[in-house]
């Protein structure tokens, strides 16, 4: 898959993982692994990027005597997910057109 596209997809995937409830690093990795190729180390730069873009916020919560970072989606984050969905509606239409056209020629 195109690397830029992959990066964009991973960003929204992570946002989607925290859309309904706050989550933490490892949990996000587990949630996403069935869908995308992501690991503990590839997640980190994404989280940092999303935080820098203010699409999510971070807070520390105590867990078993240590601090765990929880990530919460922001309004901008939700807007990003919505924008992604719209974009893909468009792509899906093009996809149907392209593949539809191909079967026409056969």
């Amino acid at each position, binding site marked *: 898959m195109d690397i830029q596209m992959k990066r964009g997809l991973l960003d929204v995937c992570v946002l989607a993982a925290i859309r309904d409830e706050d989550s933490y*690093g490892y*949990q996000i990795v587990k949630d996403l692994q069935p869908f995308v190729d992501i690991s*503990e*180390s590839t997640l980190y*730069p994404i*989280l940092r990027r999303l935080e820098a873009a203010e699409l999510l916020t971070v807070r520390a919560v105590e867990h078993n005597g240590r601090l765990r*970072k929880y990530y919460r989606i922001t309004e901008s984050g939700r807007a990003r997910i919505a924008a992604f969905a719209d974009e893909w509606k468009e792509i899906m239409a093009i996809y149907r057109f392209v593949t539809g056209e191909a079967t026409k020629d056969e």
Partner: protein
Amino acid sequence: MNKTVFLDRLDGLIRTLPYEERRATLDYYTEMIEDLIEEGKTEEEAVAALGEAEALAEQILKTAEIQGTETETDTDSKPEQQKKNKMSAGTIVLLVAGSPLWISLAVSALAIILSLYIVLWSLVITVWAVELALGAGALVTLLSPLLLISGRAGEMLLLCGGGLVCAGLAILWFYVSKWASIGAWKLSVWGVRMLMKPWRRKEQNDE
């Protein structure tokens, strides 16, 4: 590898990052290892899941750079520059300490080279001296009949003959002298170039 060793290693490798970032990164990976352990993995397995510390550090630094974080890449070049400067400082100390030795060696080397040049050009001068002698001899012996007028024909013929021989030799020897001079000059230039070689090569490397 255990957790502390891994994290310390990672910390060392991302030294160039600003404190905040380093702290955040280490916290993240500490937490990740802890979570993996909680999941049921052993400390070894948890650390292994993150891969090589070097590879991880490389990725961390690269993303920090892409995001335009102040990875203090100035300090990246600083250590190198410092290394360069440090080497120069060390070299300078060595130079000063060893100066009695290398200065006298250098002077002797220069003296030898200089004497070689002197010898070379003395040879050239000698060749020209011969030329001059032949030329003068030719002139004198050819002109002397006019000056001396000794009257003895045999003597006059001898002088004429001798003079002509000298003149001929002088003409031939002129070409030898010319050839010798040009050869010596070319040799000198070549010699100087060879001496300057180490300096010119260094300049090319610096470029």
